């Protein structure tokens, strides 16, 4: 079973700035980490490979430093790593990102499954997985908490707001995973050394994907941020309610109702 896992490097902290002109995140000077949800996707792929064999390719689009996320994927145990890196990709929205990823996936010789994290923790749109499946014309199985592979099909337990449902699709298919699906493995130290010393991260540019580049990057993105601003936080006064527990609880509820919080 051959699997492609799409991963993203995201800023390490939530304390990041925005470019007021483009409405995109300012990533310079901010440390990057492998998106936590994508780690679940990698772990799911590694477990499937342990059960069914095959090869895992980790695929990412991003600036040169996104190579670190791919090295982490290699240290967890994936077989191949590809980075889509080109200045023209800068400012991509989810559709433009999905487009570039879909073109790259068509160049990967054969695959049975594409796994993605449900969402990235910086943008939290949960759009790339579903868009990718549409562009590649694949069945999409989203929000998976369990994946079961049968001979000719794959089944997932999908998490919904008020319950679960079981979905099944033929191969190839795309699955997005929830964080509950597994506990990602910690890469062993020797595997980290191999990932940095012995393994390769292939870098593909826009030229490697397609000649017509109009759908890439900021210009190829239909989503434009008109305005980005930080939420103003107003600090209130601390009020300490004193008295018997029942009485204090009653006053607390009353106060919260008055403020429209209950």
């Amino acid at each position, binding site marked *: 079973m051959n699997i492609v896992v799409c991963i993203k490097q995201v800023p390490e902290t939530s304390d990041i700035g925005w470019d007021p002109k483009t409405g995109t995140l300012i990533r310079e000077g901010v440390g990057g980490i492998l998106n936590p949800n994508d780690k679940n996707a990698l772990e799911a792929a590694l477990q499937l490979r342990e059960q069914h064999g095959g090869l895992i390719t980790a695929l990412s689009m991003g600036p040169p430093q996104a190579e670190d996320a791919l090295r*982490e994927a290699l240290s967890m145990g994936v077989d191949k790593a590809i980075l889509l890196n080109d200045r023209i990709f800068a400012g991509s929205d989810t559709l433009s990102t999905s487009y570039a990823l879909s073109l790259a996936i068509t160049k990967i010789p054969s695959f049975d499954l594409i796994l993605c994290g449900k969402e990235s923790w910086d943008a939290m749109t949960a759009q790339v997985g579903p868009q990718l499946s549409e562009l590649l014309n694949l069945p999409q199985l989203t929000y998976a908490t369990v994946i079961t592979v049968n001979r000719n099909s794959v089944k997932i337990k999908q998490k919904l707001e008020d319950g679960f449902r079981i979905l099944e699709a033929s191969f190839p298919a795309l699955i997005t995973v929830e964080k509950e699906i597994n*506990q990602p493995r*910690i890469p062993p130290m020797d595997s980290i050394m191999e*990932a940095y010393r012995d393994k390769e991260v292939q870098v593909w540019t826009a030229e490697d994907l397609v000649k017509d580049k109009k759908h890439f990057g900021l210009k190829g993105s239909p989503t434009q941020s008109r305005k980005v601003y930080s939420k103003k936080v107003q600090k209130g006064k601390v009020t300490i309610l004193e008295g018997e527990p029942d009485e204090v609880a009653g006053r607390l509820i009353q106060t919260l109702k008055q403020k429209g919080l209950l």
Partner: protein
Amino acid sequence: MDFTLSGESKMMVKAARDLAKQEIEQIEAKIEEEDAIPDDIWQKFAKARMLGMMIPKEYGGIGSSALNVILILEELAKTGSAVAFLMALNNSVVETIYHWGSEDLRKRFIPPLCDGSLWPAMAFTEPGTGSDPTAITTSAKPDGDHYVLNGTKRFISYGHKKGYGVFYAKDETEKVTAFVVDKSSEGYTWSKPWSLMGLAGQGLVDIFLKDVKVPKENILGEKGKGFHILLRWIAGERVQQMAFMVGMGQECLNESLRFAKERIVRGRPMTDMQGFQWMLAEMHASIEASRWWTYRVASKQDEGDDIAVDSAALKLFVVPTIQEVARKALQIHGSYGYCKDYKIEKLYRTIASPGVTAGSTEIQKTLVGSALARSKEI
């Protein structure tokens, strides 16, 4: 001079952080309560390939550097747990057997210490001596193919756990020789663990050797040259101890910042007040200086330099420096810092340890001072 850490080293630190969160912090309260480390932690270290890290792959290690071990140890130390010491002890004992051992000793003793099946130990100290090698009384008398060891060793970490240890004894020529001893040998017994101020679960026991037979081929290095082995080991141990101090010092600062940012005094967070800002600044500067010097000595170790004097100088600087960081952290926390509910309480106790173990801070001054006096450079 390059002060940047490689991507590989940074990733190792991150993996160590994740391991500390998933495997150590979860059980730390239990370790404190029971004063014992669960045996399966050893297998977890083995799975993470954090045992025998500096040893080549063919003996079960991974061929990494002393600096990487130091970085991992610093990260694990932020838990304030003896579990971090466990990893350090394994790496230093295994490296000692590798450095001095014959091919036969390497192949017999190193792999099981790297795969998590056996526990290491290093045994020099005795009831009547700490730093004076001439005062040791444990004897090793030749008897056919064996040496017969008799004596008592004191404060031996994990001496009661199944595995192999490096033991020092006076041979028939009254010189100190190092032996690799199987802790399952007949005549090998131990006391109950000492109850310590900190480092719960460290498993510090006294070992009683009564006619313990050790094959002659288990002599480590040259006969009669055991003290050289001890000095080289203890130099590496000092650097590891200081990495432990740096990690705990950093955690003291982290905890102090968390506390001071949230604690409101006269309507303002403590961090708004210049007095506390100065304390935090001094803590930060102290930790950074300690950290980079520790990295420097570890790098010298990787370069194959003799670090006996460097590691002693490092220790005599880092120990009081980080102990002062811990004192400031306690002051910032006020009465809360004296409560077991706050991590500072444990860190404060644990930070007291390296100043009196593996050579006191004071004896490092003698080491460095006498080396300077002997120096012919000036």
